[in-house]
């Protein structure tokens, strides 16, 4: 049953751009790419927050770092995705490892606050990079080039690249969660003291998990820079971290498709409300509040409850 649902969703996702063009829905191809990029970012946060149980409030910094690596390399004349995207992943991962190494010494709300503080530092560093646009940000002259005769300027091609990356990332996360590493991480989330007593190097596991999440966030940032053809410090502002957190909670903390569901829900909600009123935030805020108060497990939890009941 589940496998058929999955295949049907995949078939729909693959067919979408082919159907969209004759129907004149080109705008929605770009919109769908945007959703998938945020789904990737939210899923990477879910790895840290859901599986690892670490309440990081600075995830936008890693997304932004990836975006800036692509933007800066592009400005310096390096357009190849094969160079800039892996570098974006590596830079964001290294940054996350450094932030995690300090932050993981603290617990609870202090961890939330110190990750927030680091993200703000990185935000102000981006604002201070006058050579790369400073507060104004940086326009990308083109999208990254991938070779093989593919042109990312074409929205449908870009859509398929993003779809491929998202599927690969979700599959890798699925395997990771089932592997020994995933089990250990979840056990640490449930009872760190016990895992430490058994003899696991809990700090190291959490740090690796944090850095992995940051690296995947860097990949989503690289895609986002291409999608917008523009990077600016707002990508790193704390409200962006808040939005990513909302997506994860909305979709389902620690659920494989939590990030995807949450990104779809939040972005579609924003889009629908913004068609009807400029005061769309009011509606989005009210719905979010209702979800926290009445559906504590997020959308994935609602779906699961439906299946059980």
């Amino acid at each position: 049953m589940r496998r058929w649902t999955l295949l049907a969703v995949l078939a729909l996702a693959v067919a979408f751009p082919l159907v969209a063009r004759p129907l004149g829905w080109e705008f929605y191809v770009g919109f769908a790419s945007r959703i998938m990029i945020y789904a990737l970012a939210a899923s990477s946060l879910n790895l840290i927050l859901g599986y690892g149980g670490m309440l990081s409030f600075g995830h936008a910094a890693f997304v932004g770092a990836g975006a800036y690596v692509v933007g800066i390399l592009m400005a310096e004349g390096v357009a190849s995705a094969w160079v800039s995207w892996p570098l974006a992943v590596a830079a964001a991962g290294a940054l996350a490892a450094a932030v995690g190494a300090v932050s993981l010494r603290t617990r609870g709300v202090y961890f939330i606050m110190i990750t927030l503080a680091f993200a703000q530092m990185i935000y102000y560093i981006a604002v201070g990079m006058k050579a790369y646009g400073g507060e104004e940000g940086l326009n990308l002259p083109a999208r990254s080039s991938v070779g093989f005769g593919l042109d990312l300027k074409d929205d449908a091609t870009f859509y398929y690249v993003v779809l491929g990356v998202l599927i690969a990332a979700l599959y890798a996360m699925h395997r990771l969660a089932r592997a020994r590493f995933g089990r250990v991480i979840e056990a640490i989330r449930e009872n760190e003291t016990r895992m430490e007593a058994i003899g696991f190097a809990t700090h190291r596991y959490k740090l690796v998990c944090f850095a992995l999440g940051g690296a995947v966030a860097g990949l989503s940032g690289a895609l986002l820079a291409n999608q917008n053809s523009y990077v600016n410090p707002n990508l790193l502002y704390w409200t962006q971290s808040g939005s990513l957190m909302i997506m994860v909670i909305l979709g389902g903390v620690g659920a494989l498709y939590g990030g995807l569901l949450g990104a779809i829900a939040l972005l579609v909600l924003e889009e629908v409300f913004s068609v009807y009123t400029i005061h769309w935030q009011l509606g989005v805020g009210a719905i979010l509040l209702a979800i926290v108060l009445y559906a504590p497990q997020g959308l994935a939890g609602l779906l699961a409850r439906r299946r059980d009941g």
Partner: protein
Amino acid sequence: MSGILLLEQALNGLQFGLMLFLLAAGLTLVFGIMDMINLAHGSLYMVGAFLAATFAELTGSFWLAVVLAMAGTAVVGMALEISVLRRLYARDHLAQVLATFAIILIANEGVRLIWGPQVPLSAPPALAGPVQILPGLDYSSYRLVIIAVGLAVAVALYVLVTRTKTGMLVRAGASNREMATAMGVDIKLLFTLVFGFGAALCAIAGAMLGPILAVQVGMGESILILAFVVIVIGGIGSIRGALVGALVVGMADTIGRAFIPALLREFLPPQFASALGPALASILIYVLMAAILFWKPQGLFPARG
């Protein structure tokens, strides 16, 4: 000359720090007693500023407007606590972050609907000009009044928290909520009152800073993060910590912005200095916070023994 400049910046830092303290005081009590992350605290600051602007236009008196805005914001705060926040105390931090983030969205759009994106609020005309406080140093009289108000509120708060029975109950709640409840303290009522009180302090800060910064939608977001930095540095739940933290952050931020770029120019080529200076000044307080948490993970004055 440089001594005068330093004094002027120190006064600016003191003024900013005291206003941060008004925000942080309410936030740290909410955080300390209920273990609740309230991102919507900045929204109360915004609501206070908008109310003050409206009352100032209606009554024609700035000071009357500040008092009315305090009362109005306290009512808004208590209504918020009773209707929504109360349900979140038992939930985890994640749910609190999401819910109060949602309240920020609602508050921003609500304020935009009622007032529009920005309203004017100016200092009372009597305080418009500078006064000479030292030979060669003219200082804005309005900023001096802010310092006076901030100091007065800080002293009043100190007396209230350390010398009165209500204050004793609040401290008891902050250091051990379960024990205080077991001793017969009505934590629920106490907390609604604390929340309203914190909202009133927000309104003072919003109204006083309104003429200097701008009364606009979203004004709460950036200052909220600073308030969090303050209470984390000071130790969550501690009023004394909030005061020390606020002054440290206010001073470091103001003086850093004024002097780091100049200092860098002494050592670095100008193109580096002009790029690096403002960024370094902006991240200074976050570095400070990370360093303090590194050595004192509970902040400078931990409230829980």
